[in-house]
């Protein structure tokens, strides 16, 4: 019993030491503040809806009522105001990436249309803008078809569709990107901060010789690790909660519907996983420059491939499988399920289990490596 009390006291004291160290680095604190406020705000508010604010240029060779009607239909926020250009400017403009879409309305378009000769409008799409190309093209086609139909209706009778499609968006009816972006960014910042803080704290102890000093005292590697996990975990958790409450809910006005408790439980498990990961990296790297590279090489795929930027299901199987090892994949799934779909424990427990398992594996691995690297 007494031994346990001593262990707990050591873990507490070593953790407080970490917090004090952090407090001595005002530049770092400022960076943390930025990343959990402005960083999240900037990221969330910059996200366009799809295809939102798409750039469109029109070569109107007809200059008729019908062509004008079509062009006028492209409205913000889906499209930036269309620019009228000539055929020559079309190619160079697309080459330079000025326009993602160009619409070429042929001469005598209206005349042909009314004569029932089915004229053809050409739509050029810059397909390197993969995110906008496909949905945007569909959208433009639909707008053109509708406008043409409306225009023609004044002259001819029009059939009525026999079945109506009623499309309803669940959880985020207006598809506000900021909701998703904000949450995703909070998850990113949690991951980034936790990995860097713990990994770098370990390397710093090694570079300054303090870890050896610690090991000459009645302190075990397990205690050293747990101390780092709890202290850095608390810092990041506090930052995350404040950020969710003040930045996401208040400033960005994202309605967080689900259970905060459930989300926090998930965050704690996630923090366990990523802080352990940070320490694991700290035992792999031999110096701060190596750690820096290791971290950036890890953070990149974690941010891009965890399902926060593009849907997981569209990734190739092997990438999906690799990313199952990443705690962020499960954490983002959990965050989405809890906050947007109001999911309960009964639904999200597999994510929690996955986080705990990944955390456990990294923790044990880091502990083994820490013991070995200190011998």
């Amino acid at each position: 019993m007494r031994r346990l009390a001593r262990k707990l006291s050591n873990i507490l004291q070593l953790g407080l030491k970490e917090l004090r160290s952090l407090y001595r680095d005002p530049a770092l604190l400022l960076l943390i503040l930025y990343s959990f406020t402005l960083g999240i705000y900037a990221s969330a508010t910059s996200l366009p809806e799809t295809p939102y604010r798409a750039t469109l240029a029109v070569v109107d060779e007809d200059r008729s009522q019908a062509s004008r009607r079509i062009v006028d239909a492209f409205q913000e926020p889906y499209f930036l105001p269309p620019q009228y250009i000539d055929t020559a400017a079309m190619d160079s403009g697309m080459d330079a990436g000025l326009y993602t879409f160009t619409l070429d309305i042929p001469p005598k378009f209206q005349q042909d249309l009314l004569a029932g000769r089915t004229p053809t409008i050409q739509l050029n799409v810059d397909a390197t803008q993969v995110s906008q190309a496909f949905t945007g093209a569909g959208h433009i086609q639909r707008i053109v078809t509708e406008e043409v139909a409306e225009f023609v209706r004044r002259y001819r009778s029009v059939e009525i569709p026999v079945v109506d499609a009623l499309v309803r968006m669940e959880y985020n009816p207006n598809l506000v990107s900021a909701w998703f972006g904000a949450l995703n960014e909070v998850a990113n910042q949690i991951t980034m901060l936790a990995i860097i803080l713990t990994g770098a704290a370990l390397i710093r102890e090694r570079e300054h010789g303090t870890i050896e000093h610690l090991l000459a005292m009645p302190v075990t590697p397990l205690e050293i690790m747990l101390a780092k996990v709890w202290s850095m975990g608390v810092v990041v958790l506090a930052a995350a909660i404040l950020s969710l409450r003040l930045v996401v809910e208040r400033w960005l006005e994202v309605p967080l519907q689900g259970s905060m408790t459930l989300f926090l439980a998930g965050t704690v498990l996630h923090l366990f996983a990523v802080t352990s990961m940070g320490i694991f990296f700290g035992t792999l790297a031999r110096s701060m420059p190596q750690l820096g590279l290791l971290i950036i090489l890890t953070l990149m795929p974690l941010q891009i491939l965890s399902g926060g930027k593009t849907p997981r299901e569209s990734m190739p199987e092997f990438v999906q499988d690799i990313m199952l090892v990443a705690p962020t994949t499960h954490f983002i799934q959990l965050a989405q399920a809890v906050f947007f779909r109001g999911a309960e424990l009964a639904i999200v427990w597999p994510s929690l289990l996955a986080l705990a398992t990944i955390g456990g594996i990294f923790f044990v691995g880091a502990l083994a490596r820490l013991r070995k690297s200190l011998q």
Partner: protein
Amino acid sequence: MNGVAQLAGVGLRYGRTRALDDLDLSIPAGCMAGLIGPDGVGKSSLLALLAGARQIQTGGVQVLGGDMADPAHRRAVCPRIAYMPQGLGKNLYPTLTVFENLEFFGRLFGQAAAERHGRIADLLASTGLAPFAERPAGKLSGGMKQKLGLCCALLHDPDLLILDEPTTGVDPLSRNQFWELIERIRRNRPGMSVLVATAYMDEAQRFDWLAAMDGGRVLACGAPAELLARTGSASLEEAFIALLPEERRRGHRALVIPPHTRSDGVAIEAHGLTMRFGDFVAVDHVNFRIERGEIFGFLGSNGCGKTTTMKMLTGLLPASEGQALLFGQPVDARDLRVRQRVGYMSQAFSLYGELSVRQNLDLHARLFHVPAAERQARIAAMVERFGLAGELDSLPGDLPMGIRQRLSLAVAVIHRPELLILDEPTSGVDPIARDGIWELLIQLSREEGVTIFISTHFMNEALRCDRISLMHAGKVLDSDTPQALMAKRGLPSLEETFIAYLEDAGDSAAPAPPVSPAAAPAESAGAAGNPPFSLRRLLSYSRREAMELRRDPIRATLALLGTALLMFIMGYGINMDVERLTFAVLDHDQTTTSQGYSLDVSGSRYFIEKPPLGGHEDLERRMRGGEISLAIEIPPNFARDLKRGARPQVAFWIDGAMPTRADTIKGYVQGIHESFLEHLARESSQAVASPQAQVAVRYRYNPDVQSLPAMVPAMIPILLMMIPAMLTALGVVREKEMGSIVNFYVTPVTRLEFLLGKQLTYIGLGMANFAMLVALAVLFFGVPLKGSLPALSIGALLYVACSTGLGLLISSVLRSQIAAIFGTAIATLLPAIQFSGLLQPVSAMEGMGALVGQLYPTSHFLTICRGVFNKALGLIELWPYFVPLLLAVPLLTLASVAGLRKQER
């Protein structure tokens, strides 16, 4: 005598601490001048001001005939000054070899290869370092590090040599060699002035002129004989104590050591203790037996295995062979109870620099579980005993070495250990404080029966031990009482005895060849070789970075292979084609018509059908769990209503949690619905109204709208931003943290040379990375490079200059490595991944993101990359995107220069 330096009314403060207080001093030229005084009286601060390493706060500092506050003068004289800061090898580069360190300094002072190599060979020969020329500086013993530091300082024939405690932690033999070396050099260059701060009074005795300092002021100055005469003392040590104000002297008295009474047990036993590192035998079958309550001294040259032996006793290093017993138990690294009984103080300072003195004491008291009731009293006792009262709230990093050592010792004894293992605890501690420490040790040993195992380089301390071991090259030469050892050899002093033992052991204390006068075509480097911008100095930094990179192959490998791996994973992984969407049908109708409708959806290549839904609750549950992202609800009587023309309504429920995906699904669904309608119309053989107008869609540059050809070229800018930025981000801040930044402060290298020099190496690495990524894109991913490769390469060069510049900017401004890593992650990840057009075009961005996107280099290079790869463009079409990069490179460099200080503040 004409002074080499004059100080008038100089004051210096660190926060609330006053280091120098209205100090006036004139230091004579052409001689050996010494600064003596207790720890923390401002000796180091004074030397740093004279060397130009630290910014002057108040007062005037004149060195070599000019004002050190004037940057022009500093630049002009810094090649004539050499400065060796305190601490073993603090300004050396540990991964570089002895020779490479010297090469670096030589280049920094603009020496041509022939001259440089001649000088280096000379210095190496005269210091006895020649056999170790290829050994990394980090692996040298303390004495050798100091010699190397001196070589680096002497390489450019300075007129003023400033040495801050150069022999602290150096063994007696090496110390003698060190001073002999300086003597020889002075004989060859009589005009050279040497200014030394030292804690060794026997060294100070030999100097031509001394200044005794206390409390940031000069107490007295003059020749040693003068000081002795003025105070009427027999030795300099006494004179020094006599010069101190009354309150500093109080309580100081000659040490009396009660004899050690044979006690009842053995505290430490070593049997054939051996440690091997590879082929190198650090400790070779060492035996000893230390009784409880005994003070046992360990004497030996630097690198003879003392520290390794101590580490084996503490369990920090497992012995390769042999056995060590503490209190009769074999040393077991996992036995915490033994650690509780031992206090260990390591040679290198290893307390927490971020915790104040008070917090360090408190942390250790708690970690050693000093009972809560006793804790405060115990801390207070330590503060009192080690004279730390004035520094309780200071950070250890701001303290002079002597006080730091006292703090380390205080921490080691705070839990009343039964055994103390102290590795050179008095190195760098002033004479009075050393006596204070010994008083405590004697008290602990004689009154409380604490066993003390101590290593030292001070002979008068060794004499105080009950028994000592003389160690050399991993072996114990002899152990006995100091008196018995001297008697065995018949020599009057322990120092001579020790040296005699060493010489017997075959140590090459051979007289070093004299420094040849030919080595002094002195003036070549000085005045002429200090242009305002020197490519040679710039390249010397590039070369050093390259060497460090080569010594650390893991970093280069990570940078190259890591990016290849990421390109592979992300090239495939970033897929904007929203496919394999899961859906389920809630079919209330269950007719062939309704099933036909859902078949249209499941037939689409975008959708995967899941088992049908049982009801609204089922729908809700499964969508909530993320199992399905689309639900289709077909109303009852769908088929009948359809036939009747009653316009049934099909409902689509889409999971909107991820907006981009939801929008895509909506598009698909509308398309499928329309095709169903057409299908229906054709079936019912109604006259199909042909569409009034057609829209012909041409997907350009990437006709299949595949993600891969668009994403692979886009990965190049992303990777070339993050990796080079992270590589340079620690470049400057690491030197700040490790202390080698002082070389930048005191050498003629300018800020621009320093920064560009470092950047150049990483631009080179970045371009190698670029070549590899392009090859990977073309050969592995099969994305053809349609446009101009030269244009792409020029773009890449500018871009890598931007990303490395960004890293350097972060490094120049910030002060800790952790902050630099975090700062770089923040400054690269979000802007590059999200704001630069990787996934969404920059034109679609809003707010802050849009602004960042338009300014950030990645967005411009991304356009260049896609332009060259996908759109077959060249320099002519893409030139507008090169302009922002061209502007960004000098802007970033200027910002870094502005953010970097040439002096410590």
